[in-house]
């Protein structure tokens, strides 16, 4: 039982890390209907910019964070200006293809500016077991994972307030509900897109810092997007809550599957098991757990 709990808790906490990446996808999809394939590249760009600035100028953490955020805002605004604005009213698949192109551009740009070397990122939280839990219950829970879960919780709370209580947030929701109607009442679609890409850049920065502190800042950070996809399918592309719940379900189920089913079928199954889970959910709820149900007239 103790081992089962360890796997379950570890899986839930890993799921929170996936949710952090999934949140960035959700924000952009909510506001523009664009599935941003470049979110993984943005995570990489954000983390690399942070450690690059830290290494080059040796500035305090807060200043480096602010400068990295500024870089992500610039990236978001430029993406809206150069990539999305010329494609307004084009089919969704065109916008999706544009974000694929954007992925390769951002990956290349990040490596061009900061180089390809692997860098260490120290956030001051060691990835070690919490001693009190080990001593009392012999259950292994990582201090770093708990801290990451707290950060994710705060981030979701901030986003919830932003979306529900601020004027910009309400405008974002209006745009998400209906582009045409939002524009008709005077909401500037282009500015809203720039804002939402900047907020997604901020989420990418948080995800990049946490993943980078865990694995080192390197190109492999772009692969964390692959962990977010089943979370999105399961939780729904438009729901922040869905990203969190989806992450928890995917994280826990893939870890349990790897530990208990894996050894029977050769192991190494968690990479694709998450997608099987998501596909099974698709059969029952195509819009995901918290996604909006679309009914189209024919």
């Amino acid at each position, binding site marked *: 039982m103790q*081992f089962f709990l*360890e*796997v379950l808790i*570890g*899986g839930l906490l*890993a799921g929170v*890390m996936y949710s952090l990446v999934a949140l960035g996808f959700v924000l952009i999809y909510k506001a523009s209907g664009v599935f941003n394939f470049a979110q993984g590249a943005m995570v990489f760009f954000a983390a690399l910019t942070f450690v690059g600035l830290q290494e080059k100028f040796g500035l305090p953490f807060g200043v480096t964070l602010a400068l990295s955020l500024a870089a992500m805002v610039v990236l978001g605004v430029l993406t809206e200006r150069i990539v999305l604005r010329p494609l307004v009213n084009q089919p969704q698949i065109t916008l999706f293809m544009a974000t694929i192109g954007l992925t390769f551009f951002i*990956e*290349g740009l990040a*490596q061009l500016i900061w180089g*390809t*070397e*692997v*860098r*260490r990122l*120290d956030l001051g939280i*060691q*990835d*070690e*077991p919490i001693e009190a839990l*080990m001593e009392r219950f012999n259950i*292994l829970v*990582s201090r*770093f994972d708990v801290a990451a879960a707290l950060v994710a919780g705060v981030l979701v709370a901030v986003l919830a307030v932003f979306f529900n209580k601020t004027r910009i947030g309400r405008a974002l929701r209006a745009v998400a509900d209906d582009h045409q109607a939002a524009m008709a009442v005077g909401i500037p679609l282009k500015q809203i897109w720039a804002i939402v890409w900047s907020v997604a850049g901020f989420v990418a920065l948080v995800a990049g810092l946490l*993943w980078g502190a*865990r*694995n*080192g*800042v*390197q*190109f*492999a*950070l*772009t*692969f*964390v997007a692959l*962990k977010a996809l089943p979370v999105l399918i399961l939780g729904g592309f438009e729901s922040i809550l869905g990203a969190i719940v989806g992450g928890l379900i995917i994280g826990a189920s*893939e*870890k349990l599957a*790897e*530990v208990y089913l*894996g*050894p029977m079928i*050769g*192991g*190494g*199954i*968690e*990479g*694709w098991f998450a997608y099987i889970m998501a596909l099974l959910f698709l059969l029952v709820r195509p819009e995901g757990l918290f996604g909006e149900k679309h009914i189209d007239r024919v």
Partner: protein
Amino acid sequence: MTKSWKSAVLVAAAAAAGLAAAPPASAQQNTQFIGITGYRVGPYGANGAAFFGGFIDYLNLVNERDGGVNGVKLTWEECETEYNNAKGVECYERLKTRSALGPTAIHPMSTGITYAIMEKAPVDKVPLITLGYGRTDATDGRVFPWVFPLMSNYWDAATGIVRFIADKEAGNLKGKKIVLLYHDSAYGKEPHSVLDAEAKKLGFELRMIPVPHPGNEQQSQWLQIRQYKPDWVILWGWGVMTATALQTAQKTGFPRDKMVGNWWAGAEVDTVAAGPAATGYYAASLNLAGKGYPVVKDVEDVVYKKANKGQDAKLVGTVLWNRGLAAAMYTVEAIRRAQEKYGKKPITSEQMRWGIENLDVNAGRLKALGFNTMVPPVKVSCEDHGGSGLVRFQQWAGSEWKIASDWMKGDSAMVRKMIEDSAAKYAAEKGIKPGCMGG
């Protein structure tokens, strides 16, 4: 057409004509063209930048210091594979046509790319140098005349690691538990058969746990390890998998000085990324790290300071940079060997094959070249395309690698038998009649 448009068209036409008339690399007098399938971007870009940085720095050293190999200047072209098999094949196809003499020899620097081009190489008569990677049974040159897993192969590494662990356990592994944590790919599966055989022979319990690519999340694998309570973990990682394994080992309380990586899981790019979690970790190595070798000083003085052609000063002396330097040295020595037979002029790729197969870089030659003990002596033959089989161990001390053993061999008799059996099976499947090609 306006005047400016006419000028532009004329310039473009002239440039196109110039390109068409430009001599291919081979036709340039007295140069030896080397095709390089490298990678400096993508998931393994950091590893590739160090290896190919060292490789090119050595080629520059030979040109700048010695005026080439017996007066034949070296030229090269690097093609970016991003460690991707399809791009690797594309690069190979491009590079083999860049010179009428061939690309001299190709270092694929990827087990996947090696497998993808292995059957093309004999047709094109291009030797492949797979230094410490690739298909292990290709060490039998009677079946694989065009492939050279120089120095040591994966089975040398696996049995060397087992011997290293046995030495730490007072020579007795009976009843001990060892986990192989491996990258779930062709690369990660290479040591399975030899470790199974070692487990049976030495009486230890072996459990193999795969990590799906890219290996940036290993919680469940390490919880299984925590439950199994092994005495040692052998880490067969690459790229982000190694740093993540070290971090997750710390998270689950597994001691790092009970972990031994292979030589692709033991570079600064792995340990620096893992931070303090890497301290105490052992790794096998084909070569030693550090700048304390005359050849490294020559590179710094001649290539970096005098000629200002260095690749990246930060990488000089790192594990993978030194490995790239050694790979280039063996390549250059093979060219030199081939020139002894075919004349002091540019050689063809076919002649290079003979040069590699008759390569003999002994301790005296290593000293003369300034490598001293950085790499072991290598003597290649038709039967043994590796030429060494030696491995050495290093331990990460928090900021640098410290030597943890002398050069040593694993179970070379068992490895040789398994290589011959596997190569014979391959020969039977492909209808190859084993034999030596000669010159």
